[in-house]
């Protein structure tokens, strides 16, 4: 981090930020230790911000560390417990105390690095991660984070070294070339970045971060269309590679938020039963807790236990009658039970409570389709799109409903707009072709079918639409 002290002269232009100008690694680590030292334990104010379970876990770890003050493992565990609860200052201090007694523990250096990054000290973080890699050169996540931290610190040559080491150590892993491409972009070398990224994408075509960087490189190379296409494909944030050392720290989290987030993670991973066990236990302790009740409802629902889901949603509604989510959940339960009228009434109640929630309108549309009321379903989908205009799923449902209703002019208009907004989605062109064909615009339909092919539509889908509107299907060509 650069700071200007006082009002003294400033060098013209950007100060040099090269490895040569930077503090050497060992000195950087030393200096990292010399920043005003945070307290080794959480302050009373910090502790007061914790919930009971987290406070208890920290208390236990602190007692264990104090019981054997010369045991670095206990001190490091205390650091990790602080770390898990985002108490960065005490975590840093505890890790440092542990490392003072056991300075060759790569894992603790690495965790110290993350804790320092939590305080915003990215140079300190990079220095500590570098030390971790000196001690354990095999731990790949450290290279990746090291490179990112050096980049943030403005030291791109050091970042390059870290990413190059990752590429050398695990040649098939994308971390190294991705990082090197990022460094190249930082230096304005878009050609090198492009070459690296194309290699990455050959191996990992689904890596959206690579597409993001490639889009920026294309813009810099004066290829706006390619750049726009890559960037429109979805802004991909840096990937998070498996990091077992950090995962261990995460598992030390305790408390209400940890419980909820863990349950939600379990649900997202399809491990509903484990989530239910956790949440049901929490509900016994906190029967008045809306979030627990609602999340439990979603867990039961996800595992098909509809009666229990309904009970949980009703409990959530009793605690927070103004929330739209419990009646929406209950509506979904009734829908699955086949009671569509009740499901619709409950969904309408959710919408009355929060008219701006797109999912509620989406659910209403789904129920109305089951009730064979496509016109009303279309109105609900259009309402959902008002609040979630970027949802492709909603947009496609709208097109399908327009088709079902035979509203060809509206379908043509909607599909045409979608082809402008999402030129790489072939579905828009297919619907446009259908609408144009139904409206007797054979030339327009042919053009749309050709565009669909160009956007990657399958020949079978194109042929099906062509046959439906009485046209010769265009052949896929070079």
């Amino acid at each position, binding site marked *: *981090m650069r*700071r200007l*002290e*006082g*009002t003294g002269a*400033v*060098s*013209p*232009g*950007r100060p040099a930020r090269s490895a040569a100008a930077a503090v050497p690694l060992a000195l950087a*680590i030393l200096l990292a*230790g010399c*920043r*005003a*030292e*945070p*307290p080794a334990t*959480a302050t009373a104010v*910090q502790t007061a*911000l*914790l*919930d009971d379970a987290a406070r208890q876990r920290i208390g236990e770890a602190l007692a264990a560390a104090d019981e054997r003050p010369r045991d670095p493992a206990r001190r490091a565990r205390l650091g990790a417990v602080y770390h898990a*609860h*985002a*108490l*960065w*200052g005490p975590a840093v201090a505890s890790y*440092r105390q542990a490392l*003072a007694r056991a*300075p060759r523990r790569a894992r603790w250096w690495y965790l110290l690095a993350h804790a320092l990054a939590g*305080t*915003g*000290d990215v140079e300190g973080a990079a220095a500590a991660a570098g030390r971790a890699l000196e001690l354990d050169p095999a731990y790949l996540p450290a290279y990746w984070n090291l490179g990112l931290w050096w*980049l*943030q610190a*403005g030291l*791109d040559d050091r970042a390059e070294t870290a990413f190059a080491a990752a590429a050398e150590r695990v040649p098939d892993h994308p971390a190294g070339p991705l990082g090197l491409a*990022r460094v190249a972009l*930082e230096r304005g070398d878009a050609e090198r970045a492009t070459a690296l990224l194309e290699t990455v994408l050959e191996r990992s075509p689904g890596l959206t971060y690579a597409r*993001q*960087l490639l*889009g920026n490189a294309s*813009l*810099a190379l004066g290829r*706006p269309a390619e*750049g*726009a296409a890559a960037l429109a494909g979805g*802004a991909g*944030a*840096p990937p998070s590679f498996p990091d077992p050392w950090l995962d261990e720290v995460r598992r030390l989290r305790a408390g209400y*938020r*940890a419980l909820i987030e863990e349950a939600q993670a379990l649900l997202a991973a399809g491990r509903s039963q484990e989530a239910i066990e956790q949440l049901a236990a929490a509900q016994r302790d906190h029967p008045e807790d809306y*979030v627990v009740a609602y999340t439990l409802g979603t867990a039961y629902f996800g595992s098909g236990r509809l009666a229990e889901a309904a009970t949980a949603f009703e409990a959530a509604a009793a605690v927070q009658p*103004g*929330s*739209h989510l419990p009646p929406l959940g209950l509506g979904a339960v009734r829908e699955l039970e086949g009671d569509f009228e009740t499901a619709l009434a409950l969904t309408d109640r959710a919408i009355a409570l*929060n*008219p701006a929630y797109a999912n509620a309108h989406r659910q209403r549309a789904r129920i109305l389709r089951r009730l064979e009321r496509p016109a009303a379903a279309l109105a609900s989908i259009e309402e959902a799109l008002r*609040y*979630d205009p970027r949802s492709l799923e909603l947009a496609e449902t709208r097109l399908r409903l327009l088709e079902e209703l035979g509203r060809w002019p509206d379908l043509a208009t909607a599909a045409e707009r979608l082809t402008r907004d999402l030129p790489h989605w072939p579905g828009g062109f297919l619907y446009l072709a259908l609408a144009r064909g139904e409206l007797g615009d054979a030339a327009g339909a042919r053009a749309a079918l050709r565009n669909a092919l160009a956007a990657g539509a399958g020949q079978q889908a194109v042929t099906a639409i062509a046959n439906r509107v009485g046209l010769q299907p265009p052949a896929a060509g070079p």
Partner: protein
Amino acid sequence: MLLLTASAACGGPAENGGGRTAEPAGASAWFEEVAAERGLLFVHDSGHGERYLMPEIMGGGGALFDMDGDGDLDAYLVQSGPLAPGGSEGPGGDSFRNRLFRNLGGGRFEDATGGSGADDPGYGMGVAAGDYDNDGRTDLYVTNVGPNALLRNLGSGRFEDVTAAAGVGHPGWGASAAFFDLDDDGDLDLYVANYLHWSLATELDCFSDLGGPDYCNPQNYRSEAMDVLYRNEGDGTFTDVTVAAGLDAAFGNGLGVLPGDFDGDGRLDVFVANDGDLDQLWLNQGDGTLVDGALAAGCAVDLEGKRKAGMGVAAADLDDDGDLDLLVCNLRGESDSLFRNEGGYFRDVTVAGGLAAASRPFTRFGVGWVDFDNDGQEDLYEANGRVTIHSELYAEDVYAEPNLLFRGLGDLQFEEVLPRGGTRPPLYATSRAAAFGDVDRDGGVDVLVVNRDGPAHLLRNVFPHRGRWLSLRVLDERGRDALNATLEIETGGRRRHREVRAASSYLAASDPRVHLGLGATETVDSVTVRWRDGVRERFGPFPADREVTLRRGEGRPAGGT
């Protein structure tokens, strides 16, 4: 052994927060906080009670504007107040009304709220300033959680609420707003960024990283609100043209708004910073419609592809190449996004500009590129304050952070100044709006900072040995500040481009006068104004260290468009 030595050598008192702001001896302050002594007595009240209600953490706003045409900057402060007394979601009582302060000259203020009609009682967020009715007086548009308010300036410090007649009382949660002439028809249209669909009934229970109750992330609600665009009909009324203009194609949790010609086609575009979602760059198509070009131009997300929590926005041509560069402020853990306009696309130069690591530990809202030391390079001020609780605390207010001040080195390069935020001692508050202007007319730009649940700060510029300067007020043929007129300034062999701008930052309106730092240069050779209709006039030369008014029709034809 080395480490043991290090540990032994270190220590000292821990500073609240990461312990990274130790101040060197001899560092000079750039600002001193003078709000109370100058009569600017305003304490924002979020109304926070037992529950954590999302709007409480997002206000308040403020403006520096010349309400009475005397050349002194007056101040308008936006109040919030209780959202839920007795379950009521209605506006606060008399003690929770917005306040108007008249500048008595020399940067001394008196509360001029009583009888002014400017004391809008809504749950206030921000304010935009502009002369929508072309009467030469600056009007105010106040955004609220609930219906917004248009306050027509009647002169002599009196305002009339004309919201209903004008048709601009959008009932959503308005954040930043901006007056600008979208269609170049000679009157100011109005863009309002809306944050999210929210009500007490839809409020959620959320928790901080530490486990205790806290404010939610806007994504928790999944209720992004569409922004609103009002077209000025020229007769005191506006028409909502949001959908007709195409704004329904994309929106997020809107916070910051900045109109400007980003693609150099002469038409005014709008950049919108969204909280946790893609930002939008609404490119003016010239037919009343806007198309979001942010993704394709590389400024919807940062270089890494992260959808950051966009809050405040600043734009200026900092590399003297004639196009608008862009800065978006973001959340703690996310750096600023500094975009260099490369003429057709934006290049993220945050790291190279020196802002990546320095900005990352803070949650930045109000922002301004202003040449505080008058050395000819725009500096950067950022008003900071958290939205959720973190373990590193700076003050009793758990959301408080220090603000940041960066010295501009030219060509989009910055260097952080200590003492942090430019004041000694650093000020710790939950800062939101920052508005900029020379309130004491001494040639140094001052800062008005509005702090959530705290007193507003008036930061008087006390930088020692400031350079020379020139202040340019640019008025159109009606005597109105010519918002978004562009200035080409020749001085000492350097050609600079500046824009007349009131709308930027976060929830704020700043003085539209163009302030130029000149360093040691004693004369500005010429100023060429490109008015919104493309006509160009040349003014000058001007000697330094004075305020100058450039009136349309009083310059020399400059030719070209």
